[in-house]
């Protein structure tokens, strides 16, 4: 009896000692990267391929290179169901585990995380989503929004319209409709579109879609039939997108004039429209397809070894590649942080500096196996977005193809709006901290 008690005690002691020994060791040879995902709920259609792409890229880095700079990446997903409340739980969890970066993966979640992250000193990467104003690094030292913001996207839409019509002066008197999810995400582009409309003399019509009516857009499309906009820009998400494509076809709206923001460019979104969806467009900043060394490496090291959650045929789809692109930004920020700080196991503060001096050149993209997959990205101390280029992609009936050249956003017009909005944000949130973080010399 006594013997067993001692044995148990010894076993317990050993266990405790063991775990005490193991945990700091673990913390030292891996970098924890938290990442929100939504593989469930009404928006899972868009969330799942992105989640797969992000996860597979890090698995590939761990398998092929043993992590980044010899340090394994401990990548962990937190399921939000695209619910802002749950995202805050995920944020707290990420914070408690000392994440070096936080990817909110919803504009609502980003808005909720921004004030917290400035206190907790956790860099937020909201890749081409979130608060457009956060591109102002002077006010938002902890938020990064590469490669471009929703406001840039909306301005590229205007440029695309002008290109097709034959010049900016031809915009006068035209009508641009904005179909948008009636949520922070959907409403983001409104201010910039209205400002551009005023300047170039076109009209903006708003068509909000409540989340409860994502699949019930009948009357909205009747309004579109009545108003006859020349172009439609779709800031939609989840089940809203395939429904919009179907309704456009059903209502006889010329599908080639319907352009989605980059998040409305899922393969499943376009496929829903069947053969008649051919010509549907979407802005994009990554290439679709698996014909890139990086995707081939993922196939070889992750998918073929059964370590991916994605079915093989989905690898290389547009939103999957978008996820890969997001993870590439995170990985490059970590690598850059290692370079700047000289440490192997970097912290959130190091990664913030890494992001602020991020400069992914064409040559670097080639090294990463991403030549032609994406365009160069440069972030600076004051400019946390870079306002990089995007292009218009077209659905050819089976896959996304690049339609036109990479286009710059109307930076001269968007940037002052962003700075004004950032100032406004800081003023409205009493006690918003003044930036205390010094800029790097190189940026």
């Amino acid at each position, binding site marked *: 009896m006594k013997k067993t008690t001692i044995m148990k005690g010894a076993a317990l002691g050993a266990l405790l000692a063991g775990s005490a020994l193991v945990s700091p060791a673990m913390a030292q040879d891996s970098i924890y990267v938290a990442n929100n995902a939504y*593989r*469930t*709920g*009404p*928006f*899972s*259609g868009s*969330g*799942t391929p992105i989640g797969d792409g992000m996860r597979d890229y890090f698995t590939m880095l761990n398998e092929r290179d043993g992590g980044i700079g010899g340090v394994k990446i401990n990548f962990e997903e937190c399921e939000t169901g695209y619910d802002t409340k749950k995202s805050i739980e995920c944020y707290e969890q990420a914070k408690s585990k000392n994440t070096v970066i936080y990817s909110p993966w919803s504009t609502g979640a980003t808005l909720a995380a921004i004030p917290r992250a400035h206190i907790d000193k956790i860099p937020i990467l909201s890749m081409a989503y979130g608060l457009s104003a956060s591109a102002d690094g002077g006010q938002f030292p902890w938020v990064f929004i590469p490669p471009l913001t929703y406001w840039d996207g909306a301005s590229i839409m205007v440029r695309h319209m002008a290109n097709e019509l034959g010049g900016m002066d031809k915009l006068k008197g035209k009508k641009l409709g904005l179909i948008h999810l*009636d949520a922070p995400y959907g409403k983001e582009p409104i201010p910039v579109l209205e400002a551009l409309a005023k300047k170039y003399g076109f009209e903006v019509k*708003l*068509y*909000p*879609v*409540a*989340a*409860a*009516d*994502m*699949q*019930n857009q*009948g*009357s*909205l499309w*009747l*309004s579109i*039939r*009545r108003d006859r906009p020349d172009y439609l820009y779709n800031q939609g998400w*989840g*089940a809203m997108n*395939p*429904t919009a494509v*179907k309704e456009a076809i*059903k*209502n*006889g709206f010329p599908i080639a004039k319907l352009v989605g923001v980059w998040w409305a460019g899922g393969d*499943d979104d376009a*496929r*829903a429209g069947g053969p008649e969806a051919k010509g549907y467009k979407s802005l994009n900043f990554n290439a679709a397809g698996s014909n890139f060394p990086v995707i081939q490496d993922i196939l070889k090291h992750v998918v073929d070894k059964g370590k991916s959650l994605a079915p093989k045929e989905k690898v290389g789809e547009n939103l999957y590649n978008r996820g890969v692109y997001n993870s590439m930004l995170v990985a490059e920020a970590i690598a850059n942080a290692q370079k700047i700080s000289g440490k192997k196991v970097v912290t959130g503060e190091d990664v913030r500096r890494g992001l602020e001096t991020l400069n992914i050149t064409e040559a670097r993209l080639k090294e990463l196996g991403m030549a032609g997959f994406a365009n160069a990205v440069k972030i600076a101390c004051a400019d946390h977005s870079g306002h990089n280029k995007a292009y218009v992609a077209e659905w050819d009936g089976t896959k996304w193809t690049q339609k036109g050249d990479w286009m710059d956003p109307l930076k001269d017009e968007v940037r002052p709006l962003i700075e004004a909005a950032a100032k406004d944000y800081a003023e409205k949130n009493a006690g918003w901290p003044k930036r205390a973080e010094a800029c790097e010399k190189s940026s």
Partner: protein
Amino acid sequence: MTDATLRPAPNLLANGWVKAALILAAIVAAAMVAAKLDGSGTAYKVFIDPFVQMVELPDLLVQTLWEGLVTGVLYALIALGFVLIFKASGVFNFAQGIMVVFAALTLVGLHEKGVPAFLAVILTLGVMFVLAVTIERMVLRPLVNQPDIILFMATFGITYFLIGFGESVFGGNPKQMIAEQLYLPKGAIDLNILGGRVSLQKIDIAAAVIASIMIAALALFFQYTRIGRALRAVADSHKAALSVGISLNQIWVIVWFTAGIVALITGIMWGARSDVSFALEIVALKALPVLILGGFTSIPGAIVGGLIIGIGEKLGEFYWGPLIGGGIESWLAYFIALGFLLFRPQGLFGDKIIERI
């Protein structure tokens, strides 16, 4: 003098309909006065302009009414699923929405596995039957005689179970409804009406027809068959029904299975109009204002309520939505329902509940 002259004059105001009509007339009169007073201002846009549009562009009016009709019939079908369960078990079945998703996903999932389309429909019906039996055995039977709120909470449990179970079996990816394989029509019929084009989607026509047949069949079934009478007995009183030898368990299985069939049809129709994903769950909850309007216990109420909400929300969104920035559809349905409730708290066709204390 006859007795008739001695009788006091009937109080017309006590009649809800008369009161409603009077108030409506007052509103219209006030609106016309307001419109007169401020010319082309807000009142004009609210009270006059929409009707001018209706007259000037009759094709769009017809199209709006058609869209409203189709959605209304589908709402009615969903509401029917709720009504049946409410009648039999006295609970609002929160799980009806997820049953739509679950049925549609099962159908598509089976077809993906290589099962021929129509066999998949039959198998899905089998799955819905098994689900009904399981719910009866595992959830309802142990909760007999518990307060209604307990049963209501149990339907939340069923919802979350089905979400998790559905996701683990089928994954969260949206899927295409196998409309073609089920020989559902594609394309549209374009009619030239009053100088404009009205386009009737064949799938919408099919949805309206199938849903109407379904509603009629269910209404007849529960009106004229032995099971229907038993259901109505159960709805009146569980104990009294039991005392005359009606099997509560059997009725519950039948009702939940019927709700499963309704869910499958809704899933196919709505899935073909959009896609099959967990977002469909929200659509089913649009039946709530329909139920408030029609009354939780009335089959005709579900039908009329569905049509009023469907047509009302489309007209409202199309003609008045732009005045306040659009996207009003989602709450307008509740607004319409509330308007009716002011005059008939029990819903249009609901039973007046008289409780003795």
